[in-house]
């Protein structure tokens, strides 16, 4: 039955079709986007099918690659934790694809478009694969697939992109190698690479120093990929100078998948008690998170480039997720997982808006946004939805994940983390209202034109519909995710949190 194949379809379809994109694109460029669209639709459909199967089955579904039994073979596991993330990745990548058609025309020479879409598809393949796999080494492979394509498509951006991409290569490789070292250490002591198997084998070995060092390497590696402070330094440059579509694809998805890997690491490979009772891993993460959020807020305030500001925002959001993990209780972890999904949508919203503004005006300096609301009212409307979500105004989704994070810190009595959460919401408000003010209000001299009945017309100059529709759908998604967050939590996330909490 095809439903059994869902876990592997999600990854294999884009992987194979990416090859076809390159070949077919060489023959006729217009077929690139449809092929990518088909590939991602199959993934989305499989992801949704898998979601239904997981809910119906009440537990994880396994797929053994090549029919080899784990732990000797590689298996793909879809359980309550990764199934909503899979759906979100597939959905957002389709929307970004539709968005990219016009946006990439302006920023890339035409001959490179098939290659671009090949890399696009490979990137999404890697991300989906990371989320689906149940094998630690397989995760490394897919992580590198995603990273390569990321390095390459970042490098084709504007001035400064190639250098930032190179730096990202160096940094990212350190991260991936650190991850590999972690896997290596665990392999030495247990002889297994399968995540569930490691979960069974490791507890007897928790006293071992090799395991501890392995954990440390893991954290460094995943931290670099996730972009948490102080490993975030590659992010601002890389995402700012990359083409708009590329940032819109990578920023929401790549770092959140890193966060997902972190949760897998701490709660599936290692038992929660390792990170909480045995070694103060969760606590250390909490302090790093707090420092990171403060740093991110300060840096974001100093930026005048819209995309750079968003990049520092990502660092802050990753900090939130870590706070949820650091609270080490059911509420906090629920908030963290919900925040992964919510943040995907929020960042997708913000970065597509930045892309739209770039498409129309070619300028991302927020102090030059005057009259933007006359030219691009719908884009700015979407921006307001995203902004309110990041600040935490209900009914946008951002509020609900913040709510759980706050409850989590209260229950864990971590008052400093709570204070950081609340204070950063206010700083976010300043950040966004600064932009909104510049874009919506048109400062004039005292009493100058207050009664002149309005400006001479600056006409509507919106981005084309193929860019607007994805943005509107993401904005709608933000609101719907917020209103129905209770449903999502009750049916899915509740079971994703380890039972020991």
């Amino acid at each position, binding site marked *: 039955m095809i439903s059994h194949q869902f876990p592997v379809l999600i990854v294999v379809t884009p992987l194979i079709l990416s090859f076809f994109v390159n070949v077919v694109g060489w023959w006729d460029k217009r077929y690139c986007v449809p092929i990518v669209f088909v590939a991602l639709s199959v993934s989305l459909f499989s992801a949704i099918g898998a979601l239904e199967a997981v809910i119906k089955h009440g537990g994880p579904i396994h797929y053994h690659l090549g029919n080899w039994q784990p732990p000797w073979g590689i298996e793909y596991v879809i359980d309550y934790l990764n199934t909503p993330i899979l759906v979100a990745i597939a959905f957002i990548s389709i929307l970004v694809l539709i968005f990219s058609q016009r946006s990439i025309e302006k920023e890339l020479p035409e001959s490179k478009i098939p290659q671009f879409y090949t890399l696009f598809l490979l990137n999404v393949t890697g991300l989906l694969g990371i989320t689906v796999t149940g094998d630690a080494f397989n995760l490394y*492979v897919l992580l*590198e697939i995603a990273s390569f394509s990321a390095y*390459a498509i970042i490098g084709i951006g504007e001035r400064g992109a190639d250098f930032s991409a190179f730096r990202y*290569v160096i940094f990212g490789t350190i991260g991936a190698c650190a991850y590999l070292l972690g896997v290596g250490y665990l392999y030495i002591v247990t002889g297994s690479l399968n995540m569930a198997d490691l979960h069974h084998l490791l507890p007897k070995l928790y006293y071992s120093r090799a395991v501890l060092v392995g954990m440390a390497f893991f954290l460094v590696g995943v931290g670099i990929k996730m972009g948490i402070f102080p490993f975030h330094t590659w992010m601002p440059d890389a995402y700012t100078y990359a083409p708009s579509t590329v940032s819109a694809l990578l920023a929401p998805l790549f770092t959140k998948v890193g966060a997902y890997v972190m949760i897998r690491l701490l709660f599936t490979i290692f038992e929660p008690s390792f990170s909480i009772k045995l070694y103060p891993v969760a606590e250390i993460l909490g302090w790093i998170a707090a420092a990171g959020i403060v740093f991110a807020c300060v840096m974001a305030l100093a930026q005048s480039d819209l995309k750079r500001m968003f990049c520092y925002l990502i660092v802050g959001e990753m900090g939130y997720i870590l706070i949820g993990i650091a609270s080490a209780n059911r509420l906090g972890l629920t908030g963290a997982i919900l925040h992964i999904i919510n943040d995907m949508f929020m960042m997708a919203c913000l970065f597509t808006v930045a892309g739209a503004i770039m498409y129309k005006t070619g300028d991302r300096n927020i102090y030059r946004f005057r009259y933007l609301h006359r030219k691009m009212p719908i884009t700015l409307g979407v921006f307001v939805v995203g902004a309110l979500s990041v600040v935490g105004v209900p009914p946008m989704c951002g509020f609900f994940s913040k709510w759980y994070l706050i409850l989590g810190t209260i229950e864990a009595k971590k008052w400093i983390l709570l204070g950081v959460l609340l204070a950063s919401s206010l700083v976010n408000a300043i950040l966004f209202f600064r932009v909104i003010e510049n874009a919506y209000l048109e400062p004039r001299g005292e009493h100058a034109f207050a009664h002149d009945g309005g400006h001479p017309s600056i006409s509507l100059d919106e981005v084309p519909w193929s860019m607007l529709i994805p943005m509107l759908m993401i904005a709608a998604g933000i609101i719907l995710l917020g209103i129905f967050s209770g449903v999502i939590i009750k049916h899915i996330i509740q079971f994703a949190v380890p039972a020991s909490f």
Partner: protein
Amino acid sequence: MLEQIVSRYNYWIYIILILIGFYGMMAKNNLLKKLIGMNIFQWALILYYVSIGAKKGGTVPILSEEAGSPFEHLKAIQCVNPLPHVLMLTAIVVGVATTGIALALLIIIYRRYGTLEEDEIIEELRR
């Protein structure tokens, strides 16, 4: 203490190589040297993995049912572990691909800025 070092020489070698690679990546100004450092870093890792599969007196993991061949009645414990070798094949490929991308980027950077020195490039970008 000396015994510790000598008996685990593979670990010490890999640590030293990684540190050399790391030094290259961080401290060197020239981008190509950074890339070489990155390569050393990755290959050290690969060496490490391969070395942990080795066994004293271990033999090739080939099974044979031919009577009289040295591989008859071979028990798993006598074989060298092949899995790290396999994993590292993948890692080598990954390393090669990364190097390829990095070199492509370096070509573009050189064409655009005419130099591969990091500080000069940053200076150029700032203008």
